[in-house]
């Protein structure tokens, strides 16, 4: 595949933290903890590239670096052919519009006194300053309808929604700017099984409708198996294996992937 065929390319990404560099520690021994260690991959448009690993493997640090919410120590990120790490000011803002994130609990980091409508419209208000309040509200209502919530949601507060509805609002907020790339960090892991399936299907529908590319971060191989086109298995900051989803799942090449697969408590199929 030539360079231009990729929406996202990451090369040699690295990030390490000083060990024990907390507010109460001396942290002068120079020991560093490597969170992401020389990770390279590329994602084609329309793909769902899944990064799977256990806690502490560095997958969330990596996800945040892809949106430059965390600055890598080394490496390169090309988004639609543009150098994300070199972008500044207006250039960076323009790039960020096209890449959004869906979080495990979208409300954990948001103002609990903000209504759902304002929450969904906020990115639009920031990036398109000229829009009237009425127009913002209208756009938020449209987006909420797309994720399966009616207009009555606009004026309600976070605590009035169930977990599944909150995730729908988080998705609406991520998509209102019509991004090209969505990084979804554990989007269903806080949800009940029946609701998690609803959200996974919704993400797939929206992918087709808006032509989205997903980078999906998850600890769950069964979740990843449902939606991924390609899978990277991450351990201790490195990709130990990456490949076509079906191959990684059916014929894992790395022993760690095999151990992960063997540890999954499989739900038996009804007869």
């Amino acid at each position: 595949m030539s360079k231009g065929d990729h929406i996202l390319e990451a090369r040699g990404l690295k990030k390490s933290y000083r060990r024990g560099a907390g507010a109460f520690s001396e942290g002068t021994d120079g020991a560093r903890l490597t969170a992401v260690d020389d990770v390279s991959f590329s994602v084609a448009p329309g793909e769902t590239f899944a990064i799977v690993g256990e806690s502490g493997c560095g997958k969330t640090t990596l996800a945040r670096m892809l949106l430059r919410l965390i600055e890598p120590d080394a490496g390169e990120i090309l988004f639609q052919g543009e150098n994300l790490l070199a972008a500044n000011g207006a250039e960076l803002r323009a790039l960020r519009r096209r890449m959004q994130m869906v979080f495990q609990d979208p409300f954990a980091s948001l103002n609990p006194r903000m209504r759902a409508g304002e929450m969904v419209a906020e990115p639009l208000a920031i990036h398109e300053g000229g829009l009237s309040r009425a127009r913002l509200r209208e756009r938020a209502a449209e987006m909420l309808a797309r994720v399966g919530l009616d207009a009555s949601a606009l004026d309600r507060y976070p605590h009035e929604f169930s977990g599944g509805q909150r995730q729908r609002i988080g998705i609406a907020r991520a998509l209102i700017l019509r991004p090209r790339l969505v990084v979804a960090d554990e989007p269903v892991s806080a949800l009940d099984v029946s609701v998690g399936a609803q959200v996974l299907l919704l993400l797939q529908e929206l992918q087709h409708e808006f032509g989205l590319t997903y980078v999906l971060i998850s600890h769950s191989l069964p979740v990843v198996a449902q939606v991924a086109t390609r899978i990277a298995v991450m351990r201790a900051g490195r990709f130990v294996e990456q490949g076509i989803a079906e191959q990684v799942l059916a014929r894992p090449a790395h022993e760690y992937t095999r151990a992960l697969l063997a540890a999954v408590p499989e739900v038996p199929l009804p007869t």
Partner: protein
Amino acid sequence: MTSLLEVRGLTVELPTPEGRIRPVNDVSLRIGAGEALGLVGESGSGKTMLALALMGLLPPGARVSGEARLETGGAPQNLTTLDERRWRAVRGREIAMVFQEPMTSLNPVMRVGAQIEEAIRAHGPKLDAETVRQRTFAALERAAVPEPALRAAQFPHQLSGGLRQRVMIAMALASGSSEPNQEMSGGPRLLIADEPTTALDVTVQKQILELLGRLRRELNLGLLFITHDLGVVAQVADRVAVMYAGRIVEEGPVRDVLARPRHPYTAGLLAASPRLTRAPLTPIPGSVPQLAALPPGCAFEPRCGMRRSDCTLAVPNLRAASPSHTARCVLIEGAA
């Protein structure tokens, strides 16, 4: 199999601003000695409240009715009528519990060994220091904690999530053993495990599930294993009870229930569960009803693809799908 716990018509009522709700509603179940019952449900199903009722740990204002007979050798006791003084002889000593997040149950500023010692002393105040220390190490060893002496001297934050859960299991099983040289004699007969592996990585989960299986066999321990994960249930349980909106809607041998679910809710959960092979997921539409606003009749009826007109008339009884398998659904022919 001798009955260890026999619950009949257990109901828990809680006052809320919206009125009194029943997070546990007319629940009956039975656990034999050495048997593992999986209790499956989504959030709000009442599974944790049921566990708290069996531990005498309900929040203030809760009203309990029904019966929960515990038979651990002596005279059977009805847990729903124990006063706090008698609870102290049962809780920890005959029934023990481990929780989802061990960090919230462990004291962060106390070494883990001292916490286990405290639990042992609470039930054996006359034991000498050396005995308590030895039992603490023995408990850690039993829970397969490597280097027990080193771990005992550490604080909870110095341990991984998996090790913390092992410490909790060690503590749960240590507290009842009051006979000095007969390790197993006085320990709890029933272990309630509430989502004990939900916060853990799969590889660690596997180890904890194996540990619980081994302890169950070695100690002939009854296990009430609460989880939302049907895959985990398939692995740990002999029988499974599925809870929805406070009631048990299906109960039977784990293989039968998962292979041939007879309640549409159980079937829906199975169809919504992602597996390692890609297959179309079928979500259950809607969401779990609020306990303060349950529909008339079957609580699952508004979400059910197989509903009939009579589903809203009354809450269906548990009907027998086979001699060992029941489901609370009108679709099963022949009333129970």
